[in-house]
């Protein structure tokens, strides 16, 4: 748009508000978190030391910088709890993502192959759960998965099991919860990609003698890989820091960084350590984000 490029004032005015807002409420807090991760806990308000004395001048700054230390990071590195939580976060997110790819691909494919006039309705059906409260839907799984819950009720009644299964508060429940919650995020970008595939490619393959299964494996699936990558990235990254699902559906041995951060902050009141966990979480997440930068932007189409 030649007009906008030439009119710099308008351009600057357009990007200034988001720039300022996000600089103040995203970048600045992050810098502060970093700083606090280098502090020590204290029984004070705020509950950490050192506190930067803005009025202190140069002396204030230098004594502040001297007091910073890396104790918290050493704690994170040494204590097995945090190693386990890091591995746990990656493991849960990884396993759930793999399951999502396996389950989401057939669903997305089915959506894309549905008759046109039904597609809008079906997509809306996939979307509606997304718009209803996340917390509530996870809570519903408690009712289903607990020992006196619906699933056990049905299985016992059908005679498929003799004793109630223990699913709630285990890893399995967490995986079910993760897969359930992030399914739309996997299905919708993948569906968008599959829907846009040129149907004549499929038809040409069939014309050359390929069975529907072969067409899927050799034509549709390879061409849909960007959509799969986008969906996987869109799911994996937030899952690493997930808190609600492991907290409600997991047990005491379900160690994920999100929960660790929460308990450090709210239960132990150790803000500096919580801040260090936050920085750690960020470090873990940055890698996949940079790797999948383009996938994320391409795949993120709102339900």
């Amino acid at each position, binding site marked *: 748009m030649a007009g906008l490029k030439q009119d710099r004032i308008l351009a600057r005015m357009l990007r200034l508000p988001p720039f300022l807002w996000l600089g103040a409420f995203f970048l600045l807090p992050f810098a502060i978190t970093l700083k606090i991760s280098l502090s020590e806990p204290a029984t004070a308000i705020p509950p950490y030391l050192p506190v930067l004395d803005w009025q202190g001048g140069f002396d204030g700054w230098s004594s502040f910088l001297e007091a910073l230390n890396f104790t918290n990071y050493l704690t994170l590195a040494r204590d097995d709890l945090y190693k386990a939580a890091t591995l746990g976060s990656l493991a849960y997110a990884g396993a759930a993502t793999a399951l999502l790819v396996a389950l989401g691909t057939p669903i997305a494919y089915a959506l894309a192959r549905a008759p046109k006039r039904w597609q809008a309705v079906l997509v809306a059906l996939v979307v509606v759960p997304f*718009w209803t409260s996340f917390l509530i839907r996870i*809570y519903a799984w408690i009712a289903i998965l607990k020992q006196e819950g619906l699933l056990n009720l049905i299985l016992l009644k059908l005679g498929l099991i003799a004793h109630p299964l223990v699913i709630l508060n285990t890893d399995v429940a967490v995986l079910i919860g993760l897969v359930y919650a992030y399914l739309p995020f996997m299905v919708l970008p993948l569906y968008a990609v599959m829907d846009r595939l040129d149907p004549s490619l499929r038809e040409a393959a069939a014309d050359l003698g390929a069975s529907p299964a072969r067409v899927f494996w050799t034509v549709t699936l390879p061409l849909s890989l960007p959509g799969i990558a986008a969906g996987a990235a869109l799911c994996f990254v937030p899952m690493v820091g997930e808190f609600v699902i492991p907290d409600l559906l997991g047990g005491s041995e379900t160690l994920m960084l999100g929960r660790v*951060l929460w308990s450090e902050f709210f239960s132990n009141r150790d803000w500096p350590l919580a801040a260090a966990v936050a920085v750690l979480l960020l470090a873990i997440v940055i890698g996949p984000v940079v790797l999948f930068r383009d996938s994320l932007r391409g795949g993120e189409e709102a339900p």
Partner: protein
Amino acid sequence: MSAVTRTALVLGLGFLYAPIAVLVAYSFNDSNLVTVWGGFSTRWYAALFADVPLIASAWVSLRVAVLASAIATILGTLAALTFERQGRFRGRAVFTGLVYGPMVMPEVMIGLSLLLMFIGIGLDRGLATIVIAHATFCTGFVAVVVSARLRGLDRSLEEAAADLGAGPWRVLATITLPLLAPAILAGALLAFTLSLDDLVIASFVSGPGATTLPMRLYSQVRLGVNPEINAASTLLIALVSAAVLAASWLTARRGGT
């Protein structure tokens, strides 16, 4: 549709709606036990409306969502216009990171860092801080939705307007924004939902008197299964389904986006 794809679809949708079906069914269960069906009853709906703290928290959530989504929609639309209509400018990479960063950061991190900042600058926590936090993380989502539509918009329309004598402001106001309106609305709705739904960030940055609905529900859920929640969920689901139906009917009437 082949049998395979039909099965996949049925199973998939079944999986998605199983918990919802459970909630709706049990919201009418006279007994508060999952294992016993006590008969059809609406007592939990009555209890819901008598539950003052719950209603108060819903009211808080609503106000926060309206304000936060308004701010996020404005900021997100401005960001989208910047991404799609401005070429290179100094700091574009930083700008991109700022807008899309909050979308990928874990919520615990956003919540914690904002709280630490609010304390650092001495800002009292309450409704305002939740609004600020929600607006911050929702902006990116709005930007994504509006950007996608902007990218698909025929540039020649804006060029034609300029050719006919409209300066950049007038092109924006009379051509670009009106054609973006459906996407801006979609973005606003998305931001509204995300704000209503948020538990983690609100928990970090809220203050006395500013308990949101998810926060209240969470504290209840930890205490045990409460059938009132089923009633609340059912109402919410009914509301959302009606909204989605209305939206698709509107889009269909207009002849599609």
